[in-house]
């Protein structure tokens, strides 16, 4: 299936430093892709490039269909009423579902005549999301959509996004640095590290393709020689390895499927240039 979002050799440079470098990835239609990585990894830069706020310095980015964006901090015009924000959306976009937008806000109990600046943080997030969804985009890009929201508002926002994915053929790219926020909602994972894409693929496939091995530290090197180790840690006599594939093991080793946060952390701890035999840079499972 043709991906909705595709980047090839994408690079973005600020002055002399590359915020994003040689980044190639694709998000298939209908997926909810999690974009994770430490601060400064290039998450926001990648998103800004995808929505056209930034021009690539190298390579290219392709979005098939209309893209809607909710920036970090969900910017809105504070002095506008909610109804005026809807007018803004209607006048700025030829494709606009006013009825759905009013319906959504009505169900959320957000009064149309209230000034945006006087809404709660959760309500502002919902208004920003409503503006984006009313455009009926093919791709919805959300930069840290859950940051600064209380647990209830986080749940409400994710519910709204998920319902939209279920109802329309919407593809979502959302960033977060809290991996646990993403476990039940995302089905595609992109790990950015130091401006490069480290992982990109289906989450279930990725989790199936990795194992967490625990066993005697003395045998770790032998195992490492036979498989691709993503990350290794250990305390004293016991070693824990996160590896790709499933090696034939000495019975002294136990192995299990990793959790999403374990997998993400393992990759973030060992960027491609680490001493351990790292993964291929183009990612895994793709």
């Amino acid at each position, binding site marked *: 299936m043709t991906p909705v979002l595709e980047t090839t050799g994408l690079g973005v440079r600020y002055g002399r430093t590359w915020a994003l470098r040689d980044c190639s990835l694709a998000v298939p239609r*209908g997926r909810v892709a999690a974009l994770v990585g430490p601060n400064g990894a290039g998450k926001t830069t990648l998103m800004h490039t995808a929505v056209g706020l930034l021009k690539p310095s190298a390579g290219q980015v392709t979005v098939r269909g209309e893209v809607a964006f909710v920036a970090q901090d969900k910017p809105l015009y504070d002095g506008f009423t909610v109804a005026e924000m809807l007018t803004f959306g209607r006048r700025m976009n030829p494709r606009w579902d006013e009825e759905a937008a009013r319906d959504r806000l009505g169900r959320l109990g957000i009064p149309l005549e209230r000034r945006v600046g006087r809404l709660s943080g959760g309500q502002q997030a919902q208004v920003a999301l409503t503006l984006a969804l009313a455009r009926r985009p093919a791709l919805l890009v959300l930069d840290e959509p859950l940051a600064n929201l209380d647990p209830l508002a986080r749940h409400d926002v994710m*519910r709204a996004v998920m319902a939209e994915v279920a109802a329309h053929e919407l593809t979502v790219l959302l960033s977060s640095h809290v991996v646990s926020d993403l476990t039940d909602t995302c*089905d595609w994972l992109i790990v950015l590290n130091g401006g490069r894409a480290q992982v990109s693929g289906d989450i279930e496939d990725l989790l199936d393709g990795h194992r967490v091995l625990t066993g005697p530290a003395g045998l770790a090197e032998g195992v490492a020689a036979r498989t691709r180790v993503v990350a290794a840690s250990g305390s004293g006599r016991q070693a824990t390895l996160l590896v790709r594939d499933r090696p034939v093991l000495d019975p002294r080793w136990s192995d299990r499927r990793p959790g999403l946060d374990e997998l993400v952390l393992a990759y973030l701890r060992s960027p491609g240039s680490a001493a351990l035999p790292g993964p291929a840079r183009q990612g895994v499972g793709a």
Partner: protein
Amino acid sequence: MIEFHLDRGSGVSTYLQLVHQVRHALRLGALRPGDQLPTAREVVESLAINPNTVLKAYRELEREGLVEGRPGQGTFVRRTLGGATLAEHTRLRRGLEQWVRQARGAGLDQDDLNALFTAVTTDLAKEDIA
């Protein structure tokens, strides 16, 4: 209609939790053939989970022959779970009641009863596997 819930700390993957809950409801008779399962959108709106997870759970149930998707209508229960017919249920229950009375008469309390029952079912299960 079944209402799903999630136990996020259980370590069981979300789609399996949904599958288990449907199976459980079928066993208890809370879901019967012809009943409709909630649409992916309804599940997603209440649980804030990825719709593909719901679809994956429904596909699994379909594969097991428990439910069927009717295009444009939704997903419906095809058959019930539980190995025995209602008549057998009643007969077995009577037998169990008799056994419990005998055990009480022999001086076993509730905990003893439970422990004995669990031990027997576990041992028999092991025998089956072997």
